[in-house]
């Protein structure tokens, strides 16, 4: 149930799992874990992150040497989650995603619109052509 007056929804789903932590959010570092999805197309991969409460200027995207993409973003306003009688403050989103092989790193591009970051990762084509007899 949406409670428009309260920020406790994040904890709702954890009760039945018997957990007492906030998913993979990092309370100490004030980091929220954003939702992401990776979809495969014939010529590319599309990696999306849901980054509400974020402005384009405050997003950093890094591709490390191990084919891992790291997205960090500062929230434009503090976000609070209440659990039991505690209130936790969050200021950032951060998530790293392992990318598949055979990607064209030099041609990776990104766009951000309406709080959604879309990273387009072109595939490279390798191998030998096979002749049809």
């Amino acid at each position, binding site marked *: 149930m949406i409670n428009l007056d*309260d920020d406790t929804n994040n904890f709702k789903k954890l009760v*039945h799992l018997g957990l007492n932590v906030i998913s993979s959010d990092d309370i100490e570092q004030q980091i929220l*874990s954003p939702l992401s999805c990776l979809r495969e197309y014939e010529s590319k991969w599309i990696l999306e992150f*849901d980054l509400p409460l974020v402005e384009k200027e405050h997003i950093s995207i890094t591709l490390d040497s191990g084919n891992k993409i790291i997205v960090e973003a500062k929230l434009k306003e503090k976000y609070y989650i209440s659990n039991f009688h505690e209130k936790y403050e969050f200021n950032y989103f951060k998530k790293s995603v392992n990318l598949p092989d055979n990607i064209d790193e030099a041609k990776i591009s990104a766009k951000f619109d309406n709080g959604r970051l879309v990273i387009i990762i072109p595939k490279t084509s390798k191998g030998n052509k096979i002749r049809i007899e």
Partner: protein
Amino acid sequence: MTQKINKKNKKILLVGFPSSGLIGTFATSYVVHTLKMNQIGEIDHPDLLPTLFVENGEILEPIRIYNKENLFVILSDIPFEPDLASDFAEMVVNYSKEQKIDMIVMVSGLEALNNPPASPKVYGLITDKSLEKTLYENQISKFLAGSIYGTEAKLLSKFRKLGVPTLVIYAECHPFFPDPNAAINAITTLSKVLKIKLDTEDIKNKMETLRIQHRNLMQETLNALQQKQEKHPKPKVPQIYR
């Protein structure tokens, strides 16, 4: 603000549960919240993982029934698998017969092929020809072709076979992220169908926060959908044979 529901209207049962973009969850909860509906019951099932939610110190069961005048709502805060969906559908049908419900309305999300769509659309799928008029009067485009799977398919199939006129309002959305923006389109259509005024200003102001709040529920819904697909893979029937 208290909304009045026209007593001359048909008896309608609105059913909402987590699905693509959490459209059903957002839209149905918003109706309950805006109309200040009263909780009148709960639905339990022995195979449901024991779950209780606590809000402002009050214990809530995950599947609840609300009512205000001739509008009834069954709202589930948990996603469930098709195996349970069958029993859930029977419970809903029994309840609607008990209450002499004229029409069931479900709200859900539909992945836009061209994502994000320039102007997201809303479609209506009906189980009974008597509802053609409802589509026409409310200018809802008819869902003409496509496939539905999982919980929704099970519910819809059951409602159709048991002869309960059902309308499903599908709003184009992002299927993997909570999409309150798409839910607003669904709420606007729902407002016409239910013939009640539903001001969407409140949800518009809180869209970004709602997206953060509902990350876990979205993830759990996707996990449930994935389990469904592993257990019951989507049929890969060419369009022409459908």
